[in-house]
């Protein structure tokens, strides 16, 4: 077991997959000569050359579409968005091409490709650069959506995503690239679609993913000090969702709080809430609480940003509302 950063775990995943399959290539802004805006792709250009590590002009719709076309023709593109905020200009390529071409062609075409990059708020970048896109990309069929929070999950799931024969949206976190954790020395894969219990507990089920994970774990610590024992479930895959893992925990705790980075209206948060109330109705002893972004455009000022983003303290309040409801 080696202690490495999420950044390095992602690089290992890309490197190993490019090494074992020469149809895998990576394309995006500054991924090559600059070694990646966040250094995820450092060294890959030297190893694999300009045809497989491709710097692009600033044209997200263009290179996302090139990825779609290359995948249809038998390659396995990894399309990097410098951040997912910039994928908004490529939304049509993902929604109307990547997610639909297999169905439209009645299965004649396969699109083994990954769209990856940092998602959600970083630090003091204001509203255009602080958005969580899972609410948009989980909202339609035809793609899989993954969001990782540890080096182990990052490597194992990115390798699975690259080998998956479907379009996969893969969310990383700019503020978590340096987070360290243990990763096995040998090759391993983590199956897409499986949640992971990051902290066992039996009083309140806390569902989270991505940048929400460290917040949820910190909140669970605070709750423990309060005498509330939380089970923290990291979804890891948002579509398809491991609903059973969530339900199993809720059947045990009878209470659930959802803690994540993202806006409150709709999205993955509301989806989990709906599934729990529908599929574990008789088990719920309290309404499901959501702790996420306030329904606001992210301000630049640090003190304001800290209020909009879910903090462990605010998450704790949510957990307490759930724990002490009708108690």
């Amino acid at each position, binding site marked *: 077991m080696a202690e490495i950063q999420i950044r390095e775990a992602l690089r290992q995943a890309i490197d190993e997959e490019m090494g074992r399959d020469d149809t895998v290539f990576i394309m995006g802004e500054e991924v090559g000569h600059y070694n990646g805006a966040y250094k995820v792709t450092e060294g890959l250009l030297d190893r694999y050359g300009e045809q497989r590590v491709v710097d692009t*002009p600033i044209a997200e719709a263009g290179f996302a579409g090139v990825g779609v076309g290359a995948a249809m023709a038998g390659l396995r593109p990894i399309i990097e968005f410098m951040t997912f905020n910039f994928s908004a200009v490529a939304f049509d390529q993902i929604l109307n091409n990547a997610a639909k071409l297999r169905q439209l062609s009645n299965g*004649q075409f396969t699109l083994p490709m990954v769209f990856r990059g940092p998602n959600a708020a970083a630090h003091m970048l204001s509203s255009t650069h602080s958005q969580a896109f899972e609410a948009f990309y989980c909202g339609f069929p035809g793609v899989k959506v993954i969001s990782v929070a540890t080096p182990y999950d990052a490597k194992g799931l990115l390798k699975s995503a690259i080998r998956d024969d479907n379009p996969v949206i893969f969310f990383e976190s700019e503020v978590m690239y340096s987070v360290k954790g243990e990763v096995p020395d040998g090759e391993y894969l983590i199956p897409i679609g499986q949640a992971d219990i990051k902290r066992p507990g039996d009083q309140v089920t806390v569902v989270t993913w991505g940048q929400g994970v460290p917040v949820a774990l910190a909140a669970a610590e605070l709750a423990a000090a309060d005498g509330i024992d939380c089970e923290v479930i990291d979804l890891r895959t948002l579509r398809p969702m491991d609903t059973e893992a969530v339900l199993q925990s809720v059947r045990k705790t009878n209470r659930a709080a959802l803690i994540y980075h993202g806006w409150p209206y709709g999205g993955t948060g509301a989806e989990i809430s709906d599934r729990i109330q529908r599929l574990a109705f008789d088990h719920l002893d309290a309404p499901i609480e959501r702790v996420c972004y306030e329904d606001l455009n992210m301000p630049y000022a640090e003190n304001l940003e800290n209020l909009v983003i879910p903090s462990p303290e605010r998450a704790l309040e949510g957990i307490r509302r759930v724990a002490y409801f009708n108690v």
Partner: protein
Amino acid sequence: MSPTSAKSPSAPVAARDPDELRRLYTEMLRIRRFEESAARAYTQGKISGFLHLYIGQEAIAVATADLMKPGDRVVTTYRDHGFAVALGCKTGACMAELYGKKTGLVGGNGGSMHFFAKEEGLWGGYAIVGGHVPVAAGHAYASKYKKDGAVTLCFLGEGAMHIGATHEGMHLAGLWRLPIVFVIENNQYAMGTPLSRQSPVEDLTVRAPSYRMTSDRWVVRDVFETRDRLAKAIDRAREESQPTLIELLTYRFRGHSMSDPAKYRTKDEVEKWKEIDPLHRAEKELHEEHGVSEDELESIDDKVTEEMDAAVDFAESSPLPDPEHRFRNHYVEDDLAATEG
């Protein structure tokens, strides 16, 4: 614009092999009759949704299909029946797709706007204007990557030149010198809007230098000439991996789709273009220059019409898709599950 504004001499009759011309004429006629049959079925309420006909532009698909080598790809718009027929897709399957039947080209999933026939080289009819241009560049990127020698031909309407995706796709093809040919089928209108109200310039190949592309531009009067000039661009892509931008001046004799009465243009304008309809030009030449008799021409038409009647019968007698079919082809696993039963 008027059809004569971009002059281009056509190959001297001597060099024009009558059998070749008869073959290409027959192919053009197959497309026209297919579209006419589809239009009839639509009017009878047997086909629904949007139906965009290729009538008037047949020479382009026929010349293209005649030049394609195995592995070459056509990527086009929702106006895609002509290419499907020209590329050898079964007209029964094409018609059945319009009917939304199980035997359709894509099993009833896509309908008129979304034809796909990978084996025949039709890599798609795309319904979002401009959205297919980067995808076509991606096919060409893969060809360069795999050195498979295939050429990608990307067709788009003149109305698709102004949207971002088209610009980005062409820009990347120019930057990376991809083996691709972009062909603008300038049929003068985007729905009801003439080019003059879509663009400040009339000649769309003016864009080529900014992508460092060679360009060509001509009026589609003659299927031979169109084939010859397209061939140069295809060779440039195949031999030198150099992209080309071509603007073809053509015309659709029907409305934008079946629901469009096309009130925005004059009878006179339509007539002007009908005078140079490549299909009639070929028919006239076969008859007047190559002594093909009225009867022979009629028997060609009869055979083609028979094929299309059979296609309609096939479509009408085909079953609907199985209800479970809607669950397939979203994720690869779905189909595995499906095949596993």
